[in-house]
Every structure is written in C-alpha cells, then in structure tokens.
C-alpha cells in the first residue's frame, strides 16, 4: 500500500535541495530576519558595543564606517549626542519588539475570547459584543493613544495599554466570523448531543478549529503593531528617553536628515524589515494552510 506521505516524498525527490529552499524563501527570509532581531533584543547587553546612553560629545554625528570620515569604532555612526547608532538600534529592538509582541498577545487573546463567545453564543450577547467592537473600530487609534499617553504619563505599560485598547477589535471580528461558521457544523451538534457544556465546546471544539486563522492574524499584525509603536515613539508619547525605541530614534534624527542621514535611516530600515518580514511570513502561512483566506 502506498500512503500519501510516501507519494509526497517521492515527488520531493525530484526537486533539488536548492529548489526547495527557493520555494520556501517566503518563510526562510522573514524567519531569519525576525529571529536575528529577537536575538538582538534578548542579548542586547552582550551584542551592543556601547551602552545605549553613553554620550561622547567629541564624536557627534560620526558617519557609518564605509562613508568618508567614518570609523569602525562606530560601525553605523553616532547621533547628535555622540551615542552609537548600532548599539541604540540593538537596544531599540528590545523595546520595539517587546512592546509590540506583548500588545499582540493581549489584543489577540482578548479578541479571540470575545470573538468565540460572541460567535458561539449569538443573540443578545453577540449583538452587545459586536456593538462594542464597532465602537472600538470607529475610534481613531492614534488619537486615543495620545490621549492615554497624556493622561497616564509615558511609560512601557502605558504604550502597551494604548496599543491594546482598540487593537482587539479586528481579532474579535474575524474570530467571531469563524466561530459562527464552525458553530453550525455537525460536529458541534454532535458534541451538544453527547452533553458537552457550552464552555467546553468553545474551548475544545471551536478554538482548535480557528487556530490557523488566529496564527495568520497574529503574524500579519506584527508589522502594524511595530509601526504603531514606532509612530507613538516618533510623536514622543512612547517609551521615555534615554531608552531607545526605533520610532524615537527616527524622530531624533529628523532635524539632521540633510547632514547625518544615518541617525534616522538605520532604525527606519529595521522597522521596514520587521514589518515586511511579518507580512511575508503571514502571507506564507496563510497560503500554506488555507488559501481561501486570501482576503484577510
């Protein structure tokens, strides 16, 4: 008997190893970039050549090593206070990534729980949750973030709170739709027939069946969360200085763009890389698992 896995492996034998790597480049590159940045974030103290707040006034606006006047001491140059751009970007990864990953974890959990309850329970509960979701979606997120930052004072948890307070609504909508679809399938009826309680049905029967949608949603939102965090930092309502975040680094360099472009450019490139990696990875997972979800 030939099983399906054997058939697959036979087909694979025809393709060279390089062919397989090229085919999965959409996964390998983003995973590589993201893991590199996560390593930077975790081991920032070891990797960064200088402390993020060490200023050196004689060495202000030193260009990157490969530009005329640059030195290998400061590989990506220094900023207006003579701080090492590379070190700050490495530390910035820590702030940017931890803030956005935490915010994603919060928004995804809240959105999933509300979405499943809404979709499975239906009726008034559903109407109530969905109206709140509509309200959350109709609010301009940056405006609310500024309001929150101003009233609570800037700080790590303020930023996370501001990013999370509206972000769950997108998840709630998508997950509710999925829960609604799954609620009407026969295996849910079968579970009800053997006396499984509603909470257990939501946890054991609905949740596992929406996981792929959730994973896609999470990866695709990495980019937008990083952007939102950077926007907040750029506006000066993010993590307070001297702790660097990529957004605040871009903001720091905006007055010197004509003579010291590197101050803004490198953190900007980092933001771009993460956003693109998140989107590419999300696309790849989506295409692999469920091509029907192209519209997400």
């Amino acid at each position, binding site marked *: 008997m030939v099983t399906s896995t054997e058939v697959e492996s036979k087909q694979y034998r025809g393709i060279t190893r390089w062919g397989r790597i090229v085919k999965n480049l959409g996964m390998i590159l983003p995973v590589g970039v993201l893991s590199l940045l996560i390593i930077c974030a975790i081991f920032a103290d070891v990797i960064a050549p200088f402390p993020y707040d060490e200023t050196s006034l004689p060495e202000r606006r030193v260009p990157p090593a490969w530009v005329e006047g640059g030195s290998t001491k400061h590989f990506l140059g220094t900023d207006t206070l003579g701080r090492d751009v590379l070190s700050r970007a490495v530390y910035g990864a820590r702030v940017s990534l931890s803030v956005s990953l935490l915010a994603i974890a919060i928004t995804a959990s809240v959105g999933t729980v509300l979405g499943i309850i809404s979709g499975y329970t239906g009726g008034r509960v559903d109407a109530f949750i969905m109206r709140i979701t509509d309200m959350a979606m109709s609010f301009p997120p940056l405006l609310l973030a500024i309001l929150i930052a101003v009233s609570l004072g800037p700080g790590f948890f303020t930023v996370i709170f501001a990013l999370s307070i509206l972000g769950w609504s997108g998840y709630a909508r998508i997950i509710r739709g999925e829960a609604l679809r799954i609620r009407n399938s026969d*295996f849910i*009826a*079968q579970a009800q*027939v*053997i006396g499984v309680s509603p909470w257990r049905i939501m946890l054991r029967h609905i949740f*596992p069946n929406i996981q792929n949608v959730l994973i896609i949603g999470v990866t695709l939102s990495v980019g937008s969360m990083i952007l939102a965090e950077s926007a907040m930092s750029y506006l000066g309502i993010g993590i307070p200085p001297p702790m660097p975040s990529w957004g605040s680094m871009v903001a720091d360099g905006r007055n010197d763009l004509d003579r010291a472009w590197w101050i803004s450019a490198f953190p900007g490139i980092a933001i771009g890389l993460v956003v693109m990696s998140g989107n590419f990875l999300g696309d790849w997972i989506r295409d692999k698992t469920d091509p029907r979800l192209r519209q997400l």
Partner: protein
Amino acid sequence: MSKIILQVEGLRTYFFTRRGVVKAVDGVSFYVHEGETFGIVGESGCGKTVTGLSILRLLPEPAGKIVGGKIILDGTDLLELSKNEMREYRGSMISMILQDPMTSLNPVYTIGDQIAESVRLHQGVRDEMVKEKVISALRLLQIPSPETILGEYPFQMSGGMRQRVVGAISMSCYPRLLIADEPTTALDATIQAQYLALFKEVQRETNVAIIFITHDFGVVASICHRVGVMYAGKIVETATTRELFNNPKHPYTTALINSVPRLDQKDDRLYSIEGQPPSLIDLPPGCRFSPRCSLAREYCHEQEPPEVEISDGHTVSCWRRD
C-alpha cells in the same frame, strides 16, 4: 412486551419567526419500548428532525420552543429538567446520530479523543479505563482493529467507517434511547445495508430503544418494529411495520407506499402525490392532508379528525379510515 422507555405526549414545538409561528411539531404522541425500533417516516419538512431535537431539547434558540406536551423518559419528564440536568442526560441516557458522517466528527481530534470525551463526561473514569471503554465502544460498532483506529483522524477514514465512529460516540455510554436522524442517507446502498444490520446487532446487545427518522420506506421495512407516519407536524398513523404495509389506513400512508418504485411491476410513471405539503405557518382547517387527499369529503376540510385506535396498536387520524 417489554417496558415503555419513552413516552411522548402531545408534543408541540413551534418556531417563532418574523413571518409567523411555524408549527413544526403540533401535537405528536408516541411511545417506544425498550429494545424496540420506532420509525418516524415522512417527507422533508414534516417535523421529523424537530421531533428528535425536541426530545434532546436541542432546538435552535431562540426561535424554537417547546410550547406543550410531555416527554417522559423512564419516568422523568425531560421538559421539567434544568439545563444542567438535561445536559447530564444527553449522551448518557439519550443520544443522537446526525445525518452526515462526513462532518459530524471534529477534524482536529483523533477518533480515540472524540469517543473519550463522552466517556469522561458521563462515566467518571480515568486514564486506562477510558481507553478500555473507548475500545469496547468501537468493538460494539464492529470497527476493525480498534487499537489502530484510536489514533487516526477523521479525514483518514471512509464515509461508512466515520458513520460507525459517530455511532460509537453515541453508544459509548450505553444510552437507553438512541435517536437516529437519517443516518444512512449519506451512505451508498451497500454500506447502508451493512449499517442497518449493525444497528440491529447493537440493539440486540444493548437493548437500546431506537427512534429511527427516515423518509425511506425500504429502510423502515428492514429495521423498524413499529412506525409512525408524520405529515405536516402530526403523526397521522401508527402501526407495527407489517400492519402498516399490509393494511395502511390513512390515505397519506397509502400514497407514500405507492410512490415507492417497485421492481416487480412495470409502470411507466412513478406514482406521486398531487400538490405540495401545506405551509406550517398557515395550516389548512380540518384535516391537514385534505387539500391533497383523493378521498376527501367536505367535512374533511372543516374538522380535524381525532386519533382513533382501530386495532391493537394501530392508530389513525382520518375521517375516511374505512
């Protein structure tokens, strides 16, 4: 005869919709003995499935409501149980097999996990004992090599095998009553015959009472002991299967039996009943079947016929029963 396990009396289930009240089940009474198979036959939309769901109290909320009647299972009126008590009954006392085996299993769990869920829920056993019970449920439904099947996922199995697994889930706690809602419609003819034979054997081993919902008279003839014929939310005739086929009294029953294609007669055209079943929102006055009935007289259109027992266990609701 053995004891009556389920007695349904005057069950009325209505759906409250924007277009009006749909009287899906409108005064249905019947009983089922232990170890007996009671068939409910009728065309689509006559209220068969709703009757089954009403017994389990699993109507689509908030539209569907049981507005009257009694459902007495082994001395307890199910309609008086609390939601939690009812949930305890489901799976352990009553179970149901749904129409489509292809979608009745959760794609993300193995067969073993899915049967174990019901066992854990109702029998309060753990670990090794659970596995034992799961395997015995698979054996009961004659599933070959149960130990390997345990670890398989639904997509790895054929339709007939999946339907057996669904049966194993339903029977895993040895319920007293099993409601089977057209469990064979999605199967092809040879598998159907096997499956029906299996039902009989499971019943012999467990003495479970079965309510078999179907529109197929062939299935009725091969598995049911007694039959109720349902039309527009009412049971119009009840009899033992043999009596019903040999001596149908209600014109609707006669018409249904006549519209089954037969191999031993050469007819050019298949017999069919004129007209459409009535809308359950706007039922005709008098006998519900009267607008389509060839024997109908004027009084049939005016007054609803009572249910009359014409011989032992044979009841019929028709003015023109003679």
